[in-house]
C-alpha cells in the first residue's frame, strides 16, 4: 500500500516526462523550420528609429520623413550623393525679381500609386492642406508662404511673405510633398498609410515592428526605379538587438544607430562579412549658453577657449565624429572654422587670462551648471558632460555642476531660462546655412532655443542674407555672422557626428548622403562576390545651386 508521498512522486514523474516530450517535439519543429534564406529580391534594413506618422503634413522625425522620401516625391529633390537640388515633380521654376513669387511647371503624366493624376490643382491643395492642418512641420511653410495660385493645368505660383532665398530647399522637405485628394483629407492625418508618386509603395505597416515597401513599377523616373522588389524595415529598440540581428543574418543592412564600440569592431573587420561606410552627417552638437545667466562675455569666451573637443570626439565617440568650429557644419558652403580661427584648439592659458580679467581666482571660482538630457540624444550624453566638466575644471578657476533632466523637462527648462549652459543638437530641415544660423542667432528665435541672444547687428546680417539670392553675397554675410558668433559666444559648437551604415557583403548601391536621406531604391544584391573593402567616404557637400 503506497503512501501519499510515493503516489505524488509517481504522478510527478509522469508529468515531467510528458513535459519533456512536448519540449522535444516543439524543439524539433522549431529547429527544423528555421526561416528559409531570403530571395535576392528583398532587402531587410534594421534600425533603432521609429516611424511615428506617415503623413507628410505631420511627419517630423527622422525615420517617418525618410520613409516618406522613398514613397513620395516633392517638387524638387536633392541629387543623390550631393546637396544639390534638382527638379523632381516640378520640371522647372522661375523666381520673380523681388524674390516674392515662385512659378513652378509641374511634370506631366505622373500618377499616384492609386492611379490618380498629379497636376497643379493637386499641388496647390497639398500645400494648402499642410499649412491648414498645422502639423509639426507646418511652420516651415506657413511662416514663409503667403498664398498659392493655380495658373494653368500644370503651373502653380507660390507667393511668399518676404524674399527667402532658401525657399526651394524647403520644398525639398516632406511637408511640401504633394498628396492626392483621393486618399487624403483635410480632417485628419493619415498616420498609418501612405499614397505617393514615389519609387516604392506601402505594402504593410505594423507599428513598432516593421514596414514593408514594394516597388512601384509605374514610377515616372526610370533612372531611379528600384532594383529590388521589396524592402523591409525592421525596428529594434536597442542598439544591441540591432547588432545581434545583423550578425545573425536576420537583417541585411543596419543604419542608425549602432554604438561606437560596435562600429569600431565592424571597421576593424571591414570586408570580411560586412561592409561599413562612413560619411559626415548634417547633425551638429553644441553648447547653448544662456546669455542672461552668464552675462559676462569674457566668461563665455573663456569657456570657448577651455573646451576640449578632441577629448569628447576621441574618448566618448571613439573618433566617430569631428570637431566642429561653427554652427554651420563642415562641408556646407560658407562654413568657416570660426571658433578655431578666433580661439585656437584648446587654449587654457587664454581661458585663465579671460577669467581672471572677469574677476575670478582660485579662491573665487566660477560656479556654473552644465545640463544634459540622458536619452534623447543617445546614451552617451552623460559622458560628454563629464568630459566637458574635466576640460573646464582644468583651468583651476571653474567648478562645474552637472545636472540632467528628461527631454520634456529639459525643454521647459531652457525655455524658462533655468539652465546656465546645456547640451543640444540640431538636425536640419533644409540644407542651407540659414537653417543653421537664423533660428539660433536671430532675436526672434534665440529665446526659444535657450540662449536669449539679442543683437541688432546680427539680426540685420541674417535678414540681409535671406533677401539676396546671390551666393557670393550670402557667403560673405554668413561668414560675418560666424565671426560674430565666435566673438559673442551664445553657443559653442562642439562636434559634427559621422554617420555609418553596415551591410552584408554582396549588397551594392548603398549611398550615404550628406542630407541623411537614405534611399532604398539604389540598393540591390550583386551577382559578383564582393565589392568595396575599405572605408569609402561619399557625399561631400557641394554648393546649393539655384537655377
Amino acid at each position, binding site marked *: 500500500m503506497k503512501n501519499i508521498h510515493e503516489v505524488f512522486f509517481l504522478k510527478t514523474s509522469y508529468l515531467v516526462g510528458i513535459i519533456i516530450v512536448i519540449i522535444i517535439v516543439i524543439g524539433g519543429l522549431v529547429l527544423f523550420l528555421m526561416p528559409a534564406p531570403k530571395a535576392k529580391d528583398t532587402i531587410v534594413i534594421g534600425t533603432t528609429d521609429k516611424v511615428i506618422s506617415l503623413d507628410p503634413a505631420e511627419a517630423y522625425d527622422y525615420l517617418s520623413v525618410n520613409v516618406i522620401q522613398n514613397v513620395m516625391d516633392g517638387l524638387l529633390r536633392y541629387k543623390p550623393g550631393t546637396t544639390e537640388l534638382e527638379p523632381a515633380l516640378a520640371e522647372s521654376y522661375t523666381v520673380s525679381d523681388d524674390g516674392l513669387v515662385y512659378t513652378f511647371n509641374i511634370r506631366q503624366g505622373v500618377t499616384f500609386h492609386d492611379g490618380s493624376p498629379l497636376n497643379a490643382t493637386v499641388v496647390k491643395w497639398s500645400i494648402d492642406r499642410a499649412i491648414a492642418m498645422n502639423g509639426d512641420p507646418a511652420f516651415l511653410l506657413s511662416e514663409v508662404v503667403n498664398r498659392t495660385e493655380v495658373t494653368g493645368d500644370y503651373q502653380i505660383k507660390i507667393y511668399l511673405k518676404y524674399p527667402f532665398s532658401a525657399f526651394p530647399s524647403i520644398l525639398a522637405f516632406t511637408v511640401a510633398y504633394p498628396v492626392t485628394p483621393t486618399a487624403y483629407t483635410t480632417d485628419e492625418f493619415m498616420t498609418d498609410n501612405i499614397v505617393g508618386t514615389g519609387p516604392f509603395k506601402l505594402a504593410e505597416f505594423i507599428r513598432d515592428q516593421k514596414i514593408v515597401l514594394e516597388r512601384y513599377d509605374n514610377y515616372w523616373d526610370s533612372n531611379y526605379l528600384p532594383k529590388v522588389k521589396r524592402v523591409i524595415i525592421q525596428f529594434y529598440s536597442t542598439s*544591441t538587438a540591432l547588432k545581434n540581428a545583423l550578425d545573425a543574418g536576420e537583417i541585411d543592412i543596419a543604419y542608425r544607430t549602432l554604438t561606437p564600440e*560596435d562600429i569600431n*569592431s565592424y571597421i576593424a573587420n571591414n570586408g570580411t562579412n560586412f561592409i561599413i561606410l562612413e560619411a559626415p552627417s548634417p547633425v551638429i552638437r553644441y553648447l547653448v549658453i544662456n546669455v542672461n545667466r552668464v552675462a559676462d562675455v569674457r566668461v563665455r569666451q573663456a569657456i570657448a577657449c577651455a573646451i576640449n573637443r578632441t577629448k569628447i570626439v576621441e*574618448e566618448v565617440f571613439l573618433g566617430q565624429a569631428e570637431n566642429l568650429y561653427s554652427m554651420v557644419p563642415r562641408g556646407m558652403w560658407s562654413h568657416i572654422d570660426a571658433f578655431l580661427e578666433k580661439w585656437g584648439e584648446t587654449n587654457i592659458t587664454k581661458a585663465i587670462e579671460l577669467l581672471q580679467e572677469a574677476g575670478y581666482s582660485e579662491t573665487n571660482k566660477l560656479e556654473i551648471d552644465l545640463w544634459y538630457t540622458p536619452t534623447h540624444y543617445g*546614451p552617451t550624453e552623460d*559622458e560628454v558632460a563629464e568630459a566637458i566638466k574635466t576640460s573646464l575644471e582644468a583651468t583651476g578657476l571653474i567648478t562645474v555642476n*552637472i*545636472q540632467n533632466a528628461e527631454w520634456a*523637462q529639459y525643454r521647459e527648462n531652457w525655455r524658462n531660462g533655468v539652465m546656465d549652459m546645456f547640451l543640444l543638437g540640431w538636425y536640419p530641415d533644409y540644407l542651407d546655412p540659414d537653417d543653421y544660423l537664423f533660428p539660433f542667432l536671430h532675436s526672434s528665435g534665440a529665446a526659444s532655443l535657450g540662449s536669449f541672444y539679442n543683437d541688432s547687428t546680427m539680426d540685420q546680417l541674417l535678414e540681409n542674407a535671406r533677401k539676396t539670392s546671390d551666393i557670393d553675397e550670402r557667403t560673405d554675410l554668413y561668414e560675418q555672422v560666424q565671426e560674430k558668433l565666435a566673438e559673442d559666444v551664445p553657443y559653442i559648437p562642439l562636434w559634427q557626428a559621422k554617420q555609418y551604415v553596415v551591410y552584408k557583403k554582396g549588397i551594392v548601391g548603398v549611398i550615404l548622403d550628406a542630407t541623411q536621406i537614405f534611399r532604398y531604391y539604389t540598393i540591390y544584391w550583386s551577382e559578383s562576390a564582393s565589392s568595396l573593402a575599405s572605408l569609402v567616404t561619399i557625399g561631400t557637400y557641394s554648393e546649393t545651386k539655384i537655377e
Partner: protein
Amino acid sequence: MFAMSLSSYLRENLIDLIKRIRRPKTEEEWFIAIGGSLILFIILMTIFASFISPYDPTIPSGGSYQPPSWEHPMGTDKYGRDMLSRIIWGGRIPLAIGLVATIFSFAVGVPLGLISGYIGGALDRILSLVMDSIYSFPGLILAIALAALLGPSIMNVTLAIAVIYVPTFFRVVRGQVLSIKEELYVTAAIAIGANKWTVMGKYVFPNTIPNIVIVFSLSIADAILTEAGLSFLGLGPVIPPTPDWAYDLQKWYGVAVSQGYWWLAFWPGFFIMLAVLGFSMFGEGLNEKLNPLLREK
C-alpha cells in the same frame, strides 16, 4: 504570553537568537546565518569603501575595456575606471536608498497600522481600503510614475520607493494588533486603567516587533530591486561618474552583450543580487523561525 517590559523582552529573545545563529542547526538558522553574513559583508564593504577600494572609482586607472587581470580583477570600463573599485563604492546608493526608504515606510506604516488596528471602526475601514489599493498595485509601476513625477534625484527616488512599502508595514502591524488585542494581558491592562496609548506602546507594540523586523528586511530587499529597476529604466538618481551598481549595469550591458565585455554587466548585477539575497534570506529565515508553519503541539 505574558506582559513584559520592552527591554527585557528584547534582551531575552535576542540573546537566544544570536546563540542559535552562531551554531545554525536547522534550515531556518542557516538562512539567517548566511543572509546575515551577506548583509554584514555588503554593509561593511560599503562603509569601509574608501579603505579597501584599490583605485578611485571615478578616475581612469587603466586602459579602456580591459578584461579582468591582476591589476584590475574585475576589469575596466570604457573610460579605464577600475570595476572592482566601482563595485565596492557602488553599493552606497542602493543601500542608502533601500534603507532610508524602508525606514520612511516603517515610520508611516507602523503607527498607522497600530492605530488603525487598535481603534478600528470607520477609520480602520477607510485606511485599510486605501492601503489595499496601493498594495495591490504593481510597486515598480507606482515607483515609475512617482519618480517620473518628482524628477530624478536621490531624495525623490527614495520617497517614491518609500510609498510602495507603507501598506506592507501597515498590514502586518494591523494584523498583529488585531490578534494581540484579544489577549488576556491586554484586557487586564485596560481593566487596571491604562489608557489607549500606554496599552499600544507598552504591550501591543513590543509584540509586533519580531514581525516588523522580518518585514523590514524583506522590504529592503525589494526596495533595492525596485531602485535597480528604476535605474535600469532610466529614472535613476545617479549623476555620473558616481558609481552605482544599477547605473553601471544599465550603462554597460548593451556593450557587454554585443562586444562580449561581460565583466561590466556581470559584477554589478551580481552584487545587486547578493544584497537582495542577503536581506531576503535573513527575512525568510527569521520568518520561518518566528512563525513556523506548524507548531508541534
